[in-house]
């Protein structure tokens, strides 16, 4: 009897333990399912986010590439323009250089020709001045010689001639 009672207690305890085990196992399993479900959901969300982020990143990268491409295009255009301008400036500078050299040559030629002309003119002027001075000298000597050689009678005759000339000019008086 004791045995039976022990047995029954034992069986009952085992049953209780079994029931408790089942109860805890079931509860644990439920929680585990919930956790798995949460994890799965989170995983799916993560995947979704990852996909979206990837798409967005791809879009941004594409935009960045496009921007870079455009910038490269602008830079290339700018470089082309700068090159053109540079070549243009070089060409103009070369032309100006040519013009300046030509002008300098022309001017130097003119100066040389002018100097020749001025020299000739100076020579001519000096010559004329010398001739003029010579004439003045001759006239000065003549005056002195004539002045000395005139007698008083000659002087009086000249004065009378002058008075006679005034008589002829009577109409103007």
């Amino acid at each position, binding site marked *: 009897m004791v045995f039976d009672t022990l047995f029954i207690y034992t069986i009952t305890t085992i049953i209780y333990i079994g029931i408790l085990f089942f109860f805890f196992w079931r509860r644990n399993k439920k929680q585990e399912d919930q956790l798995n479900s949460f994890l799965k959901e989170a995983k799916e969300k993560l995947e979704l986010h990852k996909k979206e982020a990837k798409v967005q990143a791809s879009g941004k990268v594409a935009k960045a590439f496009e921007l870079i491409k455009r910038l490269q295009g602008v830079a290339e255009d700018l470089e082309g323009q700068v090159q053109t301008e540079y070549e243009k400036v070089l060409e103009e500078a070369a032309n100006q250089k040519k013009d300046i050299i030509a002008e300098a040559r022309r001017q130097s030629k003119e100066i040389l020709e002018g100097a020749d002309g001025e020299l000739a003119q100076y020579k*001519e002027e000096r*010559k*004329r001045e010398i*001739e*003029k001075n010579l*004439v*003045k000298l001759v*006239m000065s000597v*003549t*005056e002195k010689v*004539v*002045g000395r050689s*005139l007698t*008083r009678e*000659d*002087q*009086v005759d*000249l*004065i*009378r*001639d*002058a*008075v*006679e*000339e*005034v*008589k002829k*000019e*009577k109409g*103007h*008086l």
Partner: protein
Amino acid sequence: MQKGVEKLAQQLLNEIWSTTELKKVSLALEGLSHASGFKSSALAIVSNSRLSDEVKATQLLNLFNDIEIPVLQSFFAGVFSEGEFWLFSSKQFDYFDEFVRSFQITTEKLQVVQLVVAVELFPREQMVIAKQLSDSLERQVMLDLKVNPSIVGGAQIRVGNLVFDYTLRSKFNQFERQWINRMARTTEFVGE
């Protein structure tokens, strides 16, 4: 008497040919006109009936001795030698003053001609020239004579604003200009 005064003034002026002489005579007459001693002495001589005309003339001329202007002395010698003492004969009327005034007025009608010459001219030569010019200008001419040897010869005659340059200096200058001009033209034409 008024006409006599003018006639006498003109006679005196006819003896003068240069402005220098005219100035001297004019100043001397002005001086005598204001000298009361001179006029009273002259009046005393003329009024003295005991003196003959010759003595009067001599004594009157003595009054002009202080004035060393030959033209004036010879003029009054001529006047007094003809017995004309009326210039100083009146006590009431000063004819001498009238004569001086008339002389000054007559000088204003003269034509002054400036004559620049190279040598000094004798009074006779001046007179001949002045007469010739007076004939030409139909007015009595008074010569303003200047001697400038630099004109070499001939004369420069200025009548009013007109200048007649008949000096040898101007002829030489003219000849010099012509010579230089012709030389320049020849150089232009022929070249160097």
